[in-house]
């Protein structure tokens, strides 16, 4: 593997024969994907390829027509208590941060541990402060999200996920809504998480980051997984024409800017 990291064979996330339609549009076509403990999987592909939908499918923010989602050995049901419980084990970081607008930064991080894990206020707040410190926004704990920059908000969102001690975290284009000068600070936090052994599924357009952090790159187009490879292998010699076209188009864009 790319980082010389040893990844266990213990599956955390298993997607089996996932199919999904938006009306007549077939957005996910027979998706099979297993993410192992400690593994960092980066999903790339052109817009409309289904990569965000796939990411949101993992914790059932998107419904599926058929197939099975297994989280650490448990099949994810369609509804109810068990679904909520499995969701709580998988963190999610969104493109638009989605911090709770009416709550302070500290409360954003403590609300789920208190509501779902029934932790005491004190215990939750102590841990939240440690997590906020880890992502470098502990000095903002008393503010509301609107008072923070986008980069700070996204780092709070990561701390909010970590507070639930998730078995894996899903990142749905976490830097796409950020001003360019703030992308680095968020990617730094994510790189550190990866180094600490967090299991991560990341949908991103940041190719350099993907190259550096991914254990495995998934290339999607038209609702299917077309390629699956170690990053050095994928970026040096993509096997499909569509992956080559995609990487070339990115190269053009980068050289133009």
């Amino acid at each position: 593997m790319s980082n010389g990291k040893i990844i266990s064979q213990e599956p955390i996330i298993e997607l089996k024969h996932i199919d999904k339609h938006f009306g007549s549009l077939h957005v996910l076509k027979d998706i099979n994907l297993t993410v192992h403990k400690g593994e960092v999987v980066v999903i790339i592909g052109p817009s409309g390829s289904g990569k965000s939908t796939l990411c949101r499918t993992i914790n059932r923010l998107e419904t599926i027509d058929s197939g099975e989602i297994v989280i650490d050995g448990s099949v994810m049901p369609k509804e109810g208590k068990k679904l909520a419980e499995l969701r709580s084990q998988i963190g999610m970081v969104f493109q638009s941060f989605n911090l709770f607008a009416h709550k302070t930064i500290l409360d954003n991080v403590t609300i789920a541990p208190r509501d779902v894990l029934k932790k005491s206020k004190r215990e939750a707040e102590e841990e939240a402060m440690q997590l906020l410190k880890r992502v470098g926004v502990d000095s903002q704990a008393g503010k509301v999200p609107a008072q923070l920059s986008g980069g700070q908000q996204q780092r709070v969102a990561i701390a909010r996920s970590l507070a639930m001690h998730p078995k894996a975290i899903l990142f749905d284009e976490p830097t796409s809504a950020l001003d360019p000068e703030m992308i680095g600070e968020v990617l730094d936090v994510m790189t550190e998480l990866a180094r600490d052994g967090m299991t991560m599924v990341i949908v991103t357009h940041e190719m350099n980051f993907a190259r550096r952090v991914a254990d495995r790159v998934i290339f999607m187009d038209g609702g299917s997984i077309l390629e699956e490879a170690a990053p050095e292998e994928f970026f040096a010699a993509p096997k499909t024409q569509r992956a080559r076209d995609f990487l070339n188009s990115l190269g053009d864009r980068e050289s133009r800017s």
Partner: protein
Amino acid sequence: MNGAHASIRDVLYDAPGPKAKRRIAFVTVISLLALAALLAAIVRRFYVTGQLDPKYWSIFLRYTTWRFIGRGLLGTLQVAAASSVLAFAAGMLLMMARVCRYRVLNAIATFIIELSRGIPTLLFIYFFFLLAPQFGLQLPSFWRITLPVSISAMGVTAEALRSGVNAVPRGQTEAAVSLGMRSASVFFKIVFPQGFRYVIPTLISEMVIVFKDTTYAYVVNYADLMQNAKVLISNYDALLAVYLVVAVIYIVINYLINKLAATVERRTRAAVAAAK
């Protein structure tokens, strides 16, 4: 003029130049003269008809007059407060029934909301005052005014709350759900508190309407401000004086409610802006 206080005027017009300034001065003078003339005509009319006679106004020098007005005001405030609370509670239930996942409840709530919004308050009052007693429902006059006013306001309240809840971005729910929160927690801890903040100004405007609707109390012989004013008028024949004083009291209270709305809106705007 800075961004925070930019009004519609600043958007529509350029800053006035010398010519515009002269025109503004001219319009100001003319308007003030016209207003003065109108007031003078009104006062003259009252003078001619004898409404300005001291005998009509001297009643306000007596403590008992003010005590009587005060009691009426207290009655008005009690009805207004009880109606606001009831309308909010019923509106909340109707809103939840309207947005819940059960189609049957959605339909029932929609029907009740439409009745509440579509029927004039006075008809609800006649229902409780004239019709209900025939079926053996004898209510004290306080409830004969409070219930109809509440029922009339609950539909609008439910719709205001619903529009607030609907305006909360979907991402807020998704974030809460992905943390493992159950739907009741998501609604009461995340969605509703934000939606409620969006519509506080609307709800307070609705309170003004409730407050004004309480003047129907005279229909059911409940001693509110308006009813007591009528008693004063029939005793002293002081039509203008009493209505003027009562109008001022209504204006002051509604002004205070609106002021409260503006303050609350300003305070919550920052928090609301973040949800985008």
